[in-house]
């Protein structure tokens, strides 16, 4: 039963030895199940000459089970004509919901679940919301997007009441009215929402508006320094969250010291991004996820392309499950004329120019190594009197940040926002 701190104290603070035993038990159930049913997993295991009988412990699994990448899933899907890319372990008729990844970094892939009352992807999120302080009777502002399903299930599981007003693109002006009326305890924010809130802050007392909030979650992309500072000024405690390898969500707790991955639902590993060995706690590694509670499309050693730092040290909040810090996407590093940089370098440069301070941009990059730095940048038309003059300052800022003169495509923010997908703007695009 939930108590004053934890939604499931026994599970959230479980000693790591017990957690490892639980994971081993689930892995040993999963391996023969998935080998028999998942065409992609069986193919990968046959190619690696590994059989379920070879896996008798968690250590066997992390040493011997082959990896699967998103490109493997796409390739299998296209070659075999299997929409699930060989991941589906049941008949299609046994699936309750089929959702898809955002598609911001490539062709979206499917994942399925079977469920009765609460969507499994969001069930463990109730622990995070409870930790943030969401309680029975609280109002919670609904999130802006539904492509991953009924996120409000987590609100309802906590006994809270979702206020389902428009918090998607263009909806925040009216959402502020709902904040005044219901005084919600919590909301989900995205970078696109922050662009709107930034503009609305010129005519609204954001401190007063957000004074009812116990916290707000932010996901979808990194939170820039300026946005973070702005939320702090408005008195909003921000809880970053991200996806743990498309298996479940992982939220910060009040310690703000990494995102908690609920390890009873996902086996999390940090692997050398260019190799196969595990990296030490705190070292940069690629997030590799295995589903422990999804019999429909379980991921098995799925290489997510997300670069993280991870620790299994207990958190100051008392929870024992692993935490990780997202660092970026594998392959985000770009080399122009021999100079290396990551998208955050451009982000920081744009934040310093008032007309582009919302840092809406796309790095146009047909390949990782390019001869010309092309950047598509959104500017605030209400603040801009001379686009040419903004162009000069943006060029100067980016050039100072990465050491290369950019070729800019300047667009009014609304035009660039329209290129968003799933609540976020793809930051690295091919064209």
């Amino acid at each position, binding site marked *: 039963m939930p108590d004053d701190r934890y939604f499931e104290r026994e599970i959230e603070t479980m000693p790591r030895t017990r957690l490892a035993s639980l994971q081993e038990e689930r892995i040993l159930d999963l391996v023969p199940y998935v080998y028999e049913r998942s065409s992609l997993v069986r193919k990968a295991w046959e190619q690696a000459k590994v059989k379920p009988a070879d896996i008798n412990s968690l250590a066997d699994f992390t040493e011997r089970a082959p990896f699967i990448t998103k490109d493997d899933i796409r390739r299998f899907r296209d070659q075999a004509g299997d929409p699930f890319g060989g991941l589906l372990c049941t*008949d299609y008729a046994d699936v*309750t919901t*089929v959702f*898809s990844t955002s598609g911001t970094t490539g062709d979206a892939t*499917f994942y399925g679940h079977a469920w009765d009352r609460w969507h499994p992807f969001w069930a463990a999120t109730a622990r995070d919301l409870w930790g943030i302080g969401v309680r029975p009777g609280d109002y919670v502002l609904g999130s802006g997007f539904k492509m991953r399903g*009924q996120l409000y299930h987590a609100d309802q599981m906590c006994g809270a*009441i979702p206020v389902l007003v*428009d918090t998607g693109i263009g909806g925040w002006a009216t959402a502020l009215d709902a904040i005044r009326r219901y005084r919600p305890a919590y909301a989900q924010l995205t970078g696109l929402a922050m662009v709107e809130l930034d503009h609305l802050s010129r005519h609204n007392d954001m401190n007063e508006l957000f004074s009812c909030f116990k916290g707000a979650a932010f996901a979808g992309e990194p939170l820039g320094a300026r946005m973070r500072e702005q939320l702090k000024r408005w008195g909003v405690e921000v809880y970053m969250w991200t996806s743990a390898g498309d298996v479940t969500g992982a939220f910060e707790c009040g310690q703000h010291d990494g995102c908690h991955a609920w390890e009873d639902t996902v086996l999390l590993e940090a692997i050398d991004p260019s190799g196969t060995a595990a990296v030490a706690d705190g070292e940069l590694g690629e997030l590799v996820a295995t589903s422990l509670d999804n019999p429909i499309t379980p991921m098995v050693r799925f290489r997510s392309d997300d670069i993280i730092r991870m620790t299994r040290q207990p958190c100051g909040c008392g929870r024992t499950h692993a935490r990780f810090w997202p660092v970026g996407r594998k392959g985000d590093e770009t080399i122009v004329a021999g100079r290396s940089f990551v998208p955050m370098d451009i982000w920081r440069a744009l934040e310093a120019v008032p007309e582009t301070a919302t840092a809406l941009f796309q790095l146009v990059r047909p390949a990782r190594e390019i001869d010309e730095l092309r950047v598509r940048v959104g500017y605030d038309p209400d603040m801009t009197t001379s686009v040419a003059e903004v162009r000069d300052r943006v060029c100067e800022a980016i050039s100072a940040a990465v050491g290369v003169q950019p070729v800019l495509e300047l667009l009014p923010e609304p035009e660039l926002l329209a290129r968003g997908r799933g609540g976020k703007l793809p930051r690295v695009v091919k064209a």
Partner: protein
Amino acid sequence: MTLASTTAAAASIPRSRLWGIGRYYVDDTPVDFEIGWDDWERDTAWARAMLADHGIGPGSGLVIVGGMPESPWFDPFETAARELGAPYSIGEVYPFEAFRTGMYVHRLPITMIFGINRAIAEALGDELADVVAQVGVIVARPDAHPVLQDAGARPFTVTRIGPALAVECPDRAGAHLNGAEWIVTEEDGRLFITSAGSRAHRASRAALGIRGSVSAGPCGCGRTGQRVTVSPSQGV
């Protein structure tokens, strides 16, 4: 397992007073409405019957096109699909998300698209004709009808009528309202709504800002309640 343990934890605390709160607009003025858990269960039962009439059952694939703030209207249909054993996917209502609706249709055995709006239909562009050709039943918002018809579809209607949802049955005689919950009246072509059941949201002849017509009498599907018709420019 995680789902089982979190579900048990959720069951041990008091259920919220309401399922949620929705919002619709009358001439740009927001009108909020509460949805009780009993309301949601009755809405789901009605949705189940409407989907079943369209042949939805175990293994039927659906794409339900509805945004998060439309959940008070569309969640009962999502829940009904689950209860009927019909796998479903969710397509967003924003034009830039049209690819998702198209992707589900092209890759999955989809038998119904429910809720497609004009923005998605238009954004599908050249792909729309393929989508229409592949899906047997399209239940669309009124504003999407002309675009879908141009692409060769014969869509049925789903439209939000203030806090209610009206859905056409296979007999194509206007979009049914759940008469146990709502009564719509027409005055000079303008629609007004009154709550009929014991709903959390009580409405008495509330203006909807929608022009349309109401008919009653038996429908070929056996229902006897009201049916509404709104023009493509009026329905959402």
